[in-house]
């Protein structure tokens, strides 16, 4: 009888519970990689000059180096550069959610207590969650490799590529194992791990942007910050070129350390609690809580603070790198044509960076609005609506908070970028003014996505969470960052609200697209309001 007794049974339980969700994640990612790689194979296989020219663009342009590390010309390498970061983030999110689901969430919902009363060791839950997530990452590595082989790429590079993505998932399996011990809520454990993922992304992006390019212009060597990030390690595997496997050892050592730390923490805390004792709070509610709008504000403010700090950091960094864009010449400038032409390179750089931030803010807004569904399905809506609060007031409370949060997040980012950008280029005040204006035109597209989520929650409550995230992923993939280079038909691109965002500050804003987005926003929002007034609530039994 050891602390690990029962681990194998719990692995089977976790596998049974995740039998749909994990295969869906893995197959979705593999399908995406297979499809895009096949498309790049189609474009470039018989046009090596074109591939070399396009590779040069993504090597020489620091903005594109945010996406990843380039090592020579190959279709496989190019595909991984375009898809790698997205897939790495998805692998990390899959792993974080899986580990938290089987550890902290089980504790929070009281299932852990029931299991712990059985013949189950103290470490069994944590260990089984880690084993499950690691197994999912092994399957992910193999299927991503297979996806690239199917799309016509060489086997060693494909396997290396799949492994490099899964490596990020492996490290964040360990990260989530630790955050699940530290914090006593599912949201806290997921949020802290997600924040560390954002930090990892920023360090890798910074390292690559500050990196150096070899004389041939086809290989980037990262600066030191990239070495602090698991995403950076993943990119150092350089599949289809060096095929180095040693970063995998680094990741294995890291996950082992993190897992050992988590085991130590398990020994030092009580089931159901975090590492810190539950604090007491006020015996009376302050006036700052006493309305639905203020209640929602109170419930989201911690998460909003975390996101604000993250966007502040990204804004400061991307602004400070503005001078590297100014000096760009030739092929490297091509990519910015999408964001308002290469006449005003800096303007196009800022436009693209603001649009990326707009997509990030949209993710925050969607997550916030999905709490409408959680309120309803998990039961906190019932006591609220049994008071003199109407359904519309409840919807309105979330809408106001979402709008305020979106506005403040995008403004924090724009101002930060303007301040550091102005410092390296001169003229902070006018740059901040330009960027603030350009940031505000991101809001209608975010509003359309938010209103879509509200409409889904009211019309299809049971399916709203999955459908909402599917809409978000589609809107980002079909948006200006990825859509045009994926060769999607224009009507499909047009369905993404991000496609219609003006390329400010590079190009003067024309009112047409904004009015169109505004009308879609109002139409979807009104649909949500009308349905919500009529339908039965989906309350827990």
């Amino acid at each position, binding site marked *: 009888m050891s602390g690990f007794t029962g681990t194998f049974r719990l692995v089977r339980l976790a596998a049974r519970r995740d039998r749909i969700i994990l295969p869906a994640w893995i197959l979705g990612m593999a399908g995406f990689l297979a499809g895009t790689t096949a498309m790049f194979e189609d474009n470039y296989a018989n046009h090596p000059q074109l591939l070399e020219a396009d590779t040069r663009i993504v090597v020489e342009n620091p903005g594109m180096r945010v996406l990843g590390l380039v090592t020579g010309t190959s279709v496989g390498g190019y595909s991984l550069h375009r898809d790698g970061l997205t897939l790495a983030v998805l692998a990390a999110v899959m792993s974080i959610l899986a580990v938290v689901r089987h550890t902290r969430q089980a504790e*929070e919902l009281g299932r852990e207590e029931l299991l712990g009363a059985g013949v189950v060791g103290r470490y069994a839950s944590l260990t089984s969650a880690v084993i499950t997530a690691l197994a999912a990452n092994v399957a992910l590595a193999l299927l991503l490799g297979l996806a690239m082989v199917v799309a016509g790429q060489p086997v060693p590079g494909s396997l290396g590529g799949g492994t490099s993505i899964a490596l990020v998932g492996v490290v964040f399996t360990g990260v989530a194992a630790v955050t699940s011990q530290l914090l*006593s*809520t599912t949201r806290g454990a997921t949020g802290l791990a997600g924040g560390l993922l954002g930090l990892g992304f920023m360090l890798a992006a910074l390292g690559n942007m500050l990196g150096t390019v070899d004389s041939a212009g086809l290989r980037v060597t990262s600066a030191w910050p990239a070495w602090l990030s698991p995403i950076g390690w993943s990119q150092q595997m350089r599949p289809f070129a060096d095929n180095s496997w040693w970063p995998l050892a680094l990741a294995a050592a890291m996950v082992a350390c993190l897992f050992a730390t988590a085991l130590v923490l398990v020994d030092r805390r009580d089931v159901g609690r975090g590492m810190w004792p*539950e*604090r*007491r*709070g*006020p*015996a*009376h*509610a302050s006036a700052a*809580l*006493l*309305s*639905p709008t203020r*209640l929602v504000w*109170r*419930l989201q403010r911690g998460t909003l603070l975390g996101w604000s700090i993250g966007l502040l950091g990204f804004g400061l960094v991307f602004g400070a790198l503005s001078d590297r864009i100014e000096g760009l010449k030739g092929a490297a400038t091509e990519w910015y044509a999408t964001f308002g032409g290469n006449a005003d390179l800096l303007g196009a750089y800022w436009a693209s960076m603001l649009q990326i931030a707009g997509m990030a803010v949209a993710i925050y807004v969607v997550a916030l609005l999905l709490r409408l569904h959680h309120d309803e399905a*998990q*039961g*906190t809506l*019932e*006591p*609220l*609506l*049994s*008071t*003199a*609060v*109407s359904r519309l007031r409840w919807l309105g409370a979330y809408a106001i908070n979402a709008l305020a949060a979106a506005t403040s997040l995008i403004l924090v980012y724009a101002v930060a970028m303007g301040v550091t950008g102005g410092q390296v280029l001169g003229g902070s005040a006018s740059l901040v003014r330009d960027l603030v204006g350009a940031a505000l035109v991101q809001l209608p597209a975010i509003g359309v996505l938010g209103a879509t989520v509200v409409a889904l929650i009211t019309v299809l409550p049971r399916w709203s969470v999955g459908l909402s995230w599917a809409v978000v992923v589609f809107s980002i993939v079909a948006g200006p960052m990825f859509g045009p280079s994926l060769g999607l038909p224009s009507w499909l691109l047009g369905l993404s609200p991000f496609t219609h965002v003006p390329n400010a500050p590079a190009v003067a804003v024309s009112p047409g697209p904004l009015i169109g987005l505004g009308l879609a926003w109002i139409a979807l929002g009104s649909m949500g309001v009308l349905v919500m007034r*009529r*339908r*039965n*609530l989906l*309350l*827990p*039994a």
Partner: protein
Amino acid sequence: MTSAVALSGLVKDFGPRTRALDHLDLRVEAGEVHGFLGPNGAGKTTTIRVLLGLLHADAGRVVLLGGDPWRDAVGLHRRLAYVPGEVNLWPNLTGGEVIDLLGDLRGGLDATRREELLERFQLDPTKKIRAYSKGNRQKVALVAAFSSDVELYLLDEPTSGLDPLMEAVFQDVVQGLRAAGRSILLSSHILSEVEALCDRVTIVRAGRAAESGTFQELRHLTRTSVVVDTVKPMDTVTLWRGVHDVRVHDRHAEFSVDPGELNDVLAHLVDLQVRSMVTSPPTLEQLFLRHYGEDLSAPDGDRDAEVVTAR
């Protein structure tokens, strides 16, 4: 005086095959404490959610405090307080904050009464909701509801997590509200509680009101149980009219008797020379068991024939 709650022919379906409420009738007069009894899954919570306007009735008439809860939920909710059966609250707020929040959103609460109730229920308002046990979360909901002075209280199994001491406090508070002329709908499956508190009771099973009336009226429907020892053997007891559930052991017998046949049965017993005898009045427990017992065994056709309305 109007009724606080008047439901008639209420139908609620969840999907084409699940009928949660099947022509339910329920009437709560103003100023009365009305017990709403039924086993799990009988439709008590669904009924209350229809009364709150959270669910829409598929058919039937719903009148709450003289209004329609589906159309005028907000206005009516200012005049009522609700304690849900499953108390789901915001885990990162304190109990005190939740009490103030719910009270304020209802239109204000009485601060003195709030303190008094916290004292009586021995609830620490500075703890976070997630740190409370089930019973303490229930107390938060109870204090939040009882701190507001409203016309109608809808209580859905409000004591399922309370210990006996706290249950006594709860009964005390409800008695106080009754004395003050408030209307209360108390759903429960705890009979002693309903028996102690309620003026009238409606028994619901499988989504319909099986019986409704005062305890007096309902007791006429039940049998008296008898435990008796006699000098002569009691072989004939099974032949007597109105006698049920007989267990005889030589000169000792236990059985129950229909209310109309008590005199005849006593006459038979006198003939056998009674040595000792204990009779117990019919409790609601038996009434309850009788209903649900038959519910389990009787075929559907029979069940409808059994439905009796006392009022």
